[in-house]
């Protein structure tokens, strides 16, 4: 939206048709997915919280937004990574189930 105002007040005049198109794009992105700005913000907080288990990220430069392409809308996230923690880091390791336990042991007949 800020960039829209810049175009309007700033230098070269943006045509009303162009403004119409950009306003529509924005509205439709949110309305197709029924994602409110509040939900997007909550999502952003949760995503950051999960990622911090695995890596150090630059929270100031995170961009999470919706992108329209064709009839569908995608959630895009761009998250600058500062440092990755241990490769196998995750939530508290004690609570993490051992993947090997997913395989049932075979009973010998």
């Amino acid at each position: 939206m800020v960039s829209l105002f810049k175009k309007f007040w700033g230098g070269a005049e943006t045509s009303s048709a162009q403004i119409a198109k950009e306003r529509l794009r924005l509205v439709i992105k949110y309305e197709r997915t029924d994602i409110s700005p509040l939900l997007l913000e909550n999502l952003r907080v949760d995503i950051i919280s999960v990622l911090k288990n695995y890596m150090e990220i630059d929270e100031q430069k995170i961009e999470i937004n919706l992108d329209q392409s064709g009839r569908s809308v995608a959630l895009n996230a761009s998250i600058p990574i500062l440092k990755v923690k241990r490769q196998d880091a995750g939530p508290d390791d004690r609570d993490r189930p051992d993947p090997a336990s997913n395989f049932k042991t075979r009973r010998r007949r």
Partner: protein
Amino acid sequence: MGARVIVITAGKGGVGKTTSTANLAVALAKEGKKVVAVDTDIGLRNLDMVMGLESRVVYNFLDVIEKKCRLAQALVRDKRVGNLCLLPAAQTRTKDAVSPEQMVQLCEQLRPDFDFVLLDCPAGIEGGFKNAAVGADEALVVATPEVTAVRDVDRIIGLLESMEKEPIRLIINRFRPNMVRNNEMMSEKDIMDILSVQLIGIVPEDDSVIKATNKGEPLTFSRNSPAALAYSNIAGRLLGRDIPLSSLRASDGGIWAGFKRMLGME
């Protein structure tokens, strides 16, 4: 084989659903197809007036569903062109007088006798829309090049997709080439970038539409206006003909040259 059942809808009111239904119905009938135009707007019927058949309406589709008359009694045959009938809406009832199941059954009742069943849908996204769309196979959605119409039609397209109607094709109505050329109106490309559905035609703003409605004579009885030609072309495309979308924004001679060229294409 059975008819193609097409719902003509938009979400937004006043963008040209009824006008499009009437003109396409006449255009298809003139191509020799058996067409029934069904007004599904219970309580606010208008297709009868746009087609100029209002004085001959006796029964309506609700009477047929409620078995108060036979289907043949409710169908109003257009005497100006063969193969064309109107099935009117009830005027003194409300939209909840009919259920989606009954509408599906009505469409099935019409299928054997026609090539095309055109369902003129009321504005909105609630019961009236659902009743009109439920019995249809395909959809034509209508939008003018304005933010409100495009926003509403996007929602309608989403609803039609979830109802598995296909194909969904767009008519851009009341297009003004001069304004588009001056970047004061969204172009067909702008609209398609946002909506991403197949475009089946662009109908220019045309005073003839008002005169035609005044007289109750759909434009497509003749082809000597830009809108009439556009509707005739849309009918042709519905029949599978490859008619290129003419650029109404002639950078080569202005809009009048563009129109003349279009008319010369007859």
